């Protein structure tokens, strides 16, 4: 069977710094994978290699059967298949929330304006901020902005959703509303890769937890096995620090 995401022997350097070391990482269709680990462990780099926001130095990244190489047409295709949600939302501040969701469809999928706005309204409704559609991102709370960013990514009809620390920049009282949106998405059967420190979310939603440290995947397990009975000494140390904090 083909995987939704199939990464083999991935290496990535920033100058002399070896950011990813021989990473093998597969995600099946409809699977939800949470990547965790201390900061600087390479988890954001890994997820950013999946749609080539970072280019890898060696190894293979195959997304839904398409290899990420130098072919730009394939690249745009993969980027439409894999939606991404960022830590800092990265909404377009000069466009209204509705335009943020509608314009990318028009620009990259050549959707008609009418259809694009219809779909934008539909997804904004699903993340429960349709009432804010006419506002600019700067006028929304952080939680609302992140939900708008999720809606924007979903409007592209992606088969895979990548989340790069989606709640790390939020005030604590807003984390819940974003996680609820993500849980609803997971229940809808979306293939998801989530880099997060929200262990409650991992336990509740993830099929698998991947623990990374120093550019390597140290341990892969089901959430229950990982949290209750971590095998590797490094993941044990990481979890014990989390519990203390």
């Amino acid at each position, binding site marked *: 069977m083909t995987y939704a995401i199939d990464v083999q022997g991935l290496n990535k350097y920033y100058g002399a710094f070896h950011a990813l070391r021989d990473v093998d990482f597969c995600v099946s269709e409809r699977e939800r994978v949470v990547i965790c680990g201390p900061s600087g462990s390479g988890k954001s780099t890994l997820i950013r290699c999946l749609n080539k926001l970072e280019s890898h130095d060696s190894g293979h990244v195959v997304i839904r059967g398409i290899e990420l190489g130098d072919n730009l047409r394939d690249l*745009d*295709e993969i*980027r439409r298949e894999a939606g991404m949600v*960022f830590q800092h939302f*990265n909404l*377009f501040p000069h466009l209204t929330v509705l335009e943020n969701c509608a314009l990318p469809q028009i620009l*990259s999928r050549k959707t008609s304006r009418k259809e694009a706005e219809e779909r934008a309204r539909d997804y904004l409704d699903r993340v429960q901020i349709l009432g804010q559609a006419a506002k600019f991102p*700067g006028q929304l709370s952080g939680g609302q902005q992140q939900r708008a960013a999720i809606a924007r990514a979903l409007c592209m009809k992606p088969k895979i959703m990548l989340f790069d620390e989606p709640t790390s920049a939020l005030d604590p009282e807003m984390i819940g509303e974003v996680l609820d949106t993500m849980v609803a998405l997971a229940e809808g059967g979306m293939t998801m890769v989530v880099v997060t420190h929200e262990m409650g979310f991992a336990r509740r939603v993830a099929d698998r937890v991947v623990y990374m440290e120093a550019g390597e995947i140290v341990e892969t397990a089901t959430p229950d096995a990982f949290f209750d009975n971590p095998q590797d000494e490094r993941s044990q140390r990481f979890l014990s620090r989390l519990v203390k904090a």
Partner: protein
Amino acid sequence: MANPNIPAKRSAIHRLFTLLFGDWLSILLTVLSLGIVIGLVPAFNWAVLDAHWTVASPAECRAGGACWAFISAKLNFILFGLYPPEEQWRAIIVVIVIVMLVLATLSPKMWGGRLLVLWAAGIAVMLVLMNGGILGLAYVPTSKWGGLPVTLLLAVLSLGLAFPFAIVLALGRRGSLPVMRNVSIFIIEIVRGLPLVGLLFVAAILLPLFLPPDWTIDKLGRTLAALTVFAAAYLAEVIRGGLQGLPSGQIEASQALGIPYWRMVWHIVLPQAIQKVIPPLTNTAIVMVKNTALVLIVGVFDMLSAARSAATDPAWPGPSTEAYLFVAGIYFVICYGIAAYSRHLEAGINSRNHS
């Protein structure tokens, strides 16, 4: 109520006295201001009290005082130069079209492909109107164009034509291709390193010597080209400033959404970059409006040239001060208008970032 023991009137005088002479700084400023006001009395007398607003014959102006009657007598010439008086309605329409185009351009809601179409149409209409020769309009050669329409056409067209070049230069200088980057830096630095007067001489006098004799590019066109090149170099640096201020997350988000490069530049990058640099853009626009006055050096008949040559009419007693003041007033209105509109734009952009 204030202290009832002191009558209100006395306290008002007292407060005024304290304000004007309360401490050494106040005394100094009061004396200085008085000095300036007294010093301006002769100028005020000249400009208002002794001025001649209407005269039966130019000779009346010889009595001294400002000769504003000269301005009203020569208004058509200063505003439209040698343009045939019976065709001046065309020049007036051109001025109106320019103002409309500029107002449309300055509104971010209008930015996009439609605006380019509007500009192309506007420029075509203006050229047909000014030049004539078709549609039953009498032909007016560019050597007869003059005054305000020339000033505005040169300013607006040089800025408008420079903008696309400036964007390419700015993107090139920021880009990853070394050839593009070095070519952009080279062009920008060469043009910025030359005085505008030098560029105008090259365009107006030297260029025809190097071109084959049967290539006759109009002098006004060559002047416009020089102004465009000059404006492009400065605008490129302003736009580059805006590009540098753009968070990398904006580009990453566009890439992650699969938006193709040039569409991203047009819809995501440039609108934000340009909104960030409205104050320096305004600055460049104002400087370019005033730079057009330099074209008189190469014999293009702009508003300043027209005023200068109007003042040489021997029938009038050399009213060049009045002519220059009047032209200065028009320049001020144009430039202040640009500044006021840019403040309005900034207020609109700021309001988006606060609920």
